[in-house]
């Protein structure tokens, strides 16, 4: 899938010094990253990290307070960008008095020349929903399916999903993830999925954007980010970190008794008696969430190019 859709030269999303302020609080601050087109990106972070704010910015629903965010090089919500972006907000609002058929008709009426009725109808039919059912009578999960059908029908080039699977049962979640991946693979869609449920992202996503406290902590290919970190386990006594760690960046170190477990960004081989292994995605994310002071890490492909050009 990655081989087919990887388009390293095209940029789907690019943020430079992006900030959003709500009254006194900054929801996002000084965010810079780049998301290459064709990736399936997990947008991860604790509650209130700014995930939803970032997605609504990309959807053109709000303006940044400072810095910029571009979608395919254009302003989100611009006339040539809006048709190429589909967005599913967390609360999945739909008109309750509409039937499913009405809702899909709305998608067709509001997306002239783009709408893929077949894709939308298939998504609905796969859930066993009849097109005459009223949205107001559907369960939360069924409404999510209709909202996803509306998003798929738009044939987007970027699909922004805010907690899409939160109210789906495990079976429906599995089906919808499969449908999503098929959609992304078939049309080389760039997908951004915000979630704090790590399980629903593992295996599905090839790109990662971790934000916490409104700042980017990790950005890049999942494989590269995992490879850049090493999980070290060994015996260590005494206060402070072992001396041999000094030349590496320690993200987090925890001692249980005499055993020390540390996640480090190793700069060369680590001396001493340490069992080294590559961390799992979950270990990587949890370590970064527990250690808010660890320096951020952006993979080369996630460095914003406009910032580089400006600096050059």
């Amino acid at each position, binding site marked *: 899938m990655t081989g087919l859709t990887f388009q390293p030269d095209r940029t789907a999303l690019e943020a430079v010094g992006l900030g959003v302020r709500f009254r006194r609080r900054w929801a996002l601050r000084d965010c810079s990253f780049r998301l290459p087109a064709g990736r399936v990106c997990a947008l991860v972070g604790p509650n209130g990290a700014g995930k939803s704010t970032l997605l*609504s910015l990309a*959807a*053109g*629903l*709000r*303006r940044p307070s400072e810095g910029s965010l571009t979608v395919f090089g254009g302003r*989100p*919500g611009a*006339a040539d960008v*809006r*048709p190429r*972006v*589909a*967005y599913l*907000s967390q*609360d999945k*609002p*739909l*008109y309750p*008095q*509409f039937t499913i058929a*009405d809702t899909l*008709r*709305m*998608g*067709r*009426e*509001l*997306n*002239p020349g*783009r709408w*893929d*009725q*077949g*894709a939308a*109808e*298939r998504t609905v039919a796969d859930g066993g929903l009849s097109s005459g059912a009223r949205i107001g009578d559907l369960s939360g999960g069924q409404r999510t399916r209709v*909202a996803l059908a*509306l998003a798929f029908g*738009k044939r987007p080039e970027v699909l922004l999903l805010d907690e899409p699977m939160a109210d789906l049962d495990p079976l429906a979640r599995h089906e919808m993830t499969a449908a999503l991946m*098929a959609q992304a693979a*078939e049309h080389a869609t760039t997908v951004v999925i915000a979630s704090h449920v790590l399980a629903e992202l593992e295996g599905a996503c090839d790109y990662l954007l971790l934000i916490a406290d409104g700042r980017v902590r990790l950005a890049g290919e999942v494989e590269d980010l995992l490879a850049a970190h090493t999980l070290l386990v060994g015996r260590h006594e005494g206060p402070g970190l072992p001396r041999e760690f000094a030349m590496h960046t320690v993200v987090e170190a925890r001692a249980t008794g005499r055993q020390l477990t540390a996640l480090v960004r190793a700069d060369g081989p680590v001396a001493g008696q340490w069992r080294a292994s590559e961390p799992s995605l979950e270990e990587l994310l949890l370590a970064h969430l527990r250690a808010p002071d660890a320096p951020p890490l952006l993979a080369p492909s996630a460095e914003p190019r406009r910032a580089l050009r400006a600096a050059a």
Partner: protein
Amino acid sequence: MSATTVSRTAAASVVRRPRALGITWVVRRQHRTAAWIALAVLAALCAELLWLRGAMTGYVAEHGLAVPCRPEGDCAAFTAAVDGFRLRYGDVLGYNVLLLEFLPLFAGMFVAGPVIARELESGTYKVAWTQSVSPLRWFAAKLGLPVAALLVGASVLSAVFTWSWRPVGHLDDGLLVDGTRWYEAFDALGPAPVAGVLFGAALGALTGLLVKRTLPAMAGTAFACVLLSWPLTTVRPYLVDPVTTTRSASSDYPPSLHGGDSWHYERGMTTPSGGRLPDAGCIEAAGISRCVTRHGADGWYLDSHPPAHFRRLEWAQAGLVAAAAGVCAAGALWRVRRLCP
């Protein structure tokens, strides 16, 4: 994605679709139920007014009320017939007037709540704004279509009511329609309801955009409409220069405020220097002439509008209300621009 579903999709995309209507289809579908109900109510009211006109003109013809009773004639039968007319049609006319007077309020509440605030409250605007239509165009359709429909409906209803009221409105010095004379039914006649609905809708749009919650927006609009109708009725007589009659204070009695078909809206005392003392409480005082002398007045004045001023007053008020609607609409537009990303 099996082969069968793919071929089904291909077949579906070949099927001819109905003509694309864009955002207007969505707005029409949203308010379909409300539109049908409003249309049914409008039809029922028109039928009722049609009947009312026929019944009233029939009664007038039957009892010979078209010509006022001359003093030398037998006025007992005439008076009884007038009483009968009022008994039969007075209340019906009154309720129709009341309904038309509240039309701007209903329009405002509808625009504030179901049209605007409900979208912003439930977040459904996010769905519309993330399709291929710009928020500005969405707002334009969202407000334009219902407001146009409301204006058409108000015009029809006002025209039919005015048409029903007119054959009896000025008969016998307005005696038949006492309580719904032209200056009492002012807001239900001619262009007044249409201008009122335009204002109500603009106010509703502004309130909905500011409050963003359905019920508070509706309540706020209703409250503001009632509140603003008070200054309107206060300034109404001053929109057109009145006919002023004066009377010397030597004739003991002040001129009557009961003017029949003429609207006597203000009386007071005049001073020798030409100044005016609007009602100084002398009317109720025991010795009117003594009271007049005490205030240093030497005469009475009465400001009134004869029926001939009706049309000019109606259009002057409609202009004023439309200007107020313009102010609200400008506020709503400013708000829309603030809300649009």
